[in-house]
């Protein structure tokens, strides 16, 4: 084995055998924001064989305070986070196969991406996607690691199908999103602390040290100096629709999925067409410019300035409408541009 991973292999619980296992594993990282950046960097440095990273957003200046894979140039160029992450990760470790997907982590997309995956690292910013990850995890028997943070607070839990309770056992339904959106900001150390918990659990799972996996949900507040750990084994529910005896995987059913979503704390609505499309940017840009709109873009997206809002259109027909939280208004803006 090369020197590259020697210090990690010297750590007795991993050892050479564990390191070889890590070198053979495929990790799916859902989200390439703050948690996704941190998790992806640590997985790449640790020498996972393959990383698949999916993200629907692009880099903005306000991300740079905590999203460690991105530089000022990425924000200036409005680079999609998945593409910017892939570029940086390849610089960090060229031995790791990196596959990036610019798009929404829908149930269909995640089912497709889950094939051959050994572990899913949650780096999303919403519970709708987490519940989908949770169902995928149960359906395909893939462990996943929940992680989330807001302000100086963070939490993480490891879910192993057949062993631990699942997210649906604990929460029973999608929690009210507003609980985190209005609580004011995020500090980078809280991100790093969640990443540390997720990545440590990931290494245990990739090295197949199952005994070492934590069976409690951890949460902490770095500013208020609170730390707690909650044992979750009692939460296991045999009637759970995601992991129980009569499971239906409710969060993989299309009728349960929204087509428009208010993005957490961002004054932004995402609109997703019912079917993926292949948008021809040049033609749309020409038409919009002719109508007097200010249009900017790169190969991945078109940014269209309006009076109060900004619409950012992706190749697959998906759009982010900045400057509104109103779903109906966002849909109307989308339809005004896209017909």
């Amino acid at each position, binding site marked *: 084995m090369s020197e590259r991973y020697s210090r990690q292999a010297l750590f007795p619980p991993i050892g050479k055998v564990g390191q070889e296992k890590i070198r053979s594993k495929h990790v799916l990282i859902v989200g390439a924001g*703050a948690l996704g950046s941190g998790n992806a960097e640590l997985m790449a440095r640790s020498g996972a064989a393959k990383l698949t990273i999916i993200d629907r957003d692009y880099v903005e200046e306000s991300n740079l305070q905590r999203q460690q894979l991105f530089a000022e140039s990425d924000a200036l160029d409005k680079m999609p986070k998945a593409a910017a992450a892939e570029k940086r990760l390849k610089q960090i470790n060229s031995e790791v196969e990196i596959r990036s997907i610019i798009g929404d982590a829908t149930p269909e997309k995640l089912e497709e991406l889950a094939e051959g995956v050994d572990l899913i690292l949650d780096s999303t910013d919403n519970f709708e996607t987490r519940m989908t990850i949770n169902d995928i995890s149960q359906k395909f028997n893939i462990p996943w690691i929940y992680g989330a943070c807001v*302000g100086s607070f963070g939490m993480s839990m490891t879910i192993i199908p057949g062993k631990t309770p699942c997210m649906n056992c604990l929460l029973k339904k999608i*929690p009210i999103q507003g*609980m985190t959106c209005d609580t004011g900001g995020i500090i980078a150390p809280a991100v790093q602390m969640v990443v540390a918990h997720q990545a440590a659990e990931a290494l245990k799972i990739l090295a197949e040290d199952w005994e070492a996996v934590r069976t409690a949900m951890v949460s902490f*507040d770095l500013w208020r100096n609170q730390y707690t750990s*909650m044992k979750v084994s*009692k939460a296991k529910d045999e009637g759970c629709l995601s992991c129980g005896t009569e499971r239906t995987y409710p969060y993989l059913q299309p009728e349960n999925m929204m087509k428009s979503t208010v993005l957490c*704390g961002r004054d932004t609505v995402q609109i997703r067409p019912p079917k993926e499309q292949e948008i021809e940017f040049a033609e749309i840009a020409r038409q919009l410019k002719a109508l007097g709109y200010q249009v900017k873009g790169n190969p991945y997206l078109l940014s269209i300035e309006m009076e109060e809002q900004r619409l950012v259109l992706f190749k697959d027909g998906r759009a982010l409408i900045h400057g509104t939280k109103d779903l109906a208004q966002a849909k109307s803006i989308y339809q005004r541009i896209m017909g």
Partner: protein
Amino acid sequence: MNKIMFFAHLRDRVGEESLTKDVSGKTISELKQMLEENYGLKLDSVMAAVNEEFASDDEVIQAGDTIAFIPPVSGG
């Protein structure tokens, strides 16, 4: 007596990290309702732990138990 602890934004709403109160004999659900009325909290999708172990809404609190309310957060 019981110690009731609050995390994340719940702590800010209550104004303290913990309350000391005798709530033994109540279920988690009843305690949630009481706190919602007295402190204007929304505890509907908040997880509860009794003595650092997950507790369902119908679990009955015993004397001396420490109860923690932990909101699942979604940022990332």
